[in-house]
């Protein structure tokens, strides 16, 4: 029997650009052409002003650690506890859930508001997940 797998995202037409982006090593966000609001998760209209004129752009990939838990039990399939489930506040404004790599998964190491940068983790040939690591220097 195969090992239990980490949950795999299944893109929809409205989110496909995001997943195409991560595969290409880009974190793509959307900005409203009418009111300049930047938002996530993807949708083909602005959740702030309802305009359907929106653009996709490549985000800086920089952010801050907004909050997290360190999960011990029960662990999700494909995860070895303890692991942090983090929420990152992106430099462009929106927040996203993620994991923090290259960092001990401890309360001491995971300091709120620490600087983070995006990295990309390929799950298979279709899906690459954005994850974050502490910014060096």
């Amino acid at each position, binding site marked *: 029997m195969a090992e239990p797998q980490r949950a795999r995202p299944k893109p929809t037409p409205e989110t496909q650009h995001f997943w195409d982006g991560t595969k290409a090593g880009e974190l793509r966000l959307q900005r409203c052409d009418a009111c300049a609001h930047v938002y996530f*998760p993807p949708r083909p209209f602005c959740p702030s002003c309802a305009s359907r004129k929106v653009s996709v752009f490549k985000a800086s990939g920089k952010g801050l650690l907004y909050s997290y*838990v360190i999960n011990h039990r029960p*662990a999700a399939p494909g995860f070895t506890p303890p692991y942090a489930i983090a929420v990152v506040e992106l430099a462009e404004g929106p927040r996203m859930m993620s*994991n923090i790599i290259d960092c001990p998964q401890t309360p001491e190491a995971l300091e709120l508001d620490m600087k983070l940068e995006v990295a990309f983790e390929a799950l298979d040939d279709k899906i690459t997940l954005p994850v974050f690591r502490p910014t060096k220097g």
Partner: protein
Amino acid sequence: MRKNQVAVVGAAETTELGIIPNVSQLQLHADAALNAIADAGLKLSDIDGFATAVETPQQVCHYLGIKPTWVDGTSVGGCSFMLHVRHAAAAIEAGLCKTVLITHAESGKSMIGKAPRSIPADSLQGQFEAPYGVYGPPSMFPIPVLRFMKTYGITHEELASVAVVQREWAARNPRAMMKDPITVADVLNSRMIAYPFRLLQCCLVTDGGGALILTSADRAKDFPRKPVYIMGTGESVETPMVSQMETFNSSSAFKTAGPLAFREAGIAHGDVDHLMIYDAFAHLPLFGLGDLGFMPHEETGQFIADGNTRPGGKLPLNTNGGGLSYMHSGMYGMYALQESVRPMRGIAPAQVPNAKISVCHGVGSMFAASGTIVFTNER
């Protein structure tokens, strides 16, 4: 909605609470419904309005053998029943029905006749949250709490005191699952679940159910039990994605539903004699006390740690022991409502003397939804 025009005339929980491996989820609905019907001195055929969550109204109505003219299947998580009370009160006032039954039941522990919850891989949660290892409420609901604690200076000891104080209430309640006294040290030394939350800061997982019966206040005086009036109500939703909350320092749904109910009831915080705040996890009473406007968020931890919400304190909170010590089948809102009705009827195991106003505040699907009901025993 006008206040005090609709009343609770029947309220009961399932015959057993806790671990009930010999009863299906659907039968738990029926057991709670029949107990509430008996409590109200009614026949099933008197019920012409029905509401429930997770199970469909048609399923439960068919099983019970009732033919309502008004149904509500609002299912927004554990506070669905607060929303049902609000909707039922409006329906009764509008003349759509006369006598509403609201049921909840969940085989949360034994999983008998209960469909597993799953997150579709093409939903927004399935794409943007599940891949990061969230696994049920214990790893999702507490995600905001470290930010909340940093912003307001809430300590781990204060957060632990929520569980300690609620255990004091549970000790006075024969139906509570966990009654042994605990200390802050016990909480902080209990098994780690999802840092910063340990076992004793997480709700129990049990089987059970409850039901309420509502009718117009004018009819309510002819029922065997003392009526408990619906004084004010509020509801709202925010987001099913905990990562997308407006801020982690507060709940937008709490801040909408709670004050709406207070305004409708025409009450001030000092008028509240008894308070229930849905405590799936230990941080929720802190969010609730702040978002409902009882005090600034930064004072909430100290307020509870100082004993203000314990037996004999000035603001009795979660007097059945709460989801942390009483029971929690997965959707706790019905049990909070039951525990608001009891002291208004004067029959709570840990009765609050002379209580006239009880506020019951619910939350659903992490911070996705909220509903607040203000009850009173004086018309």
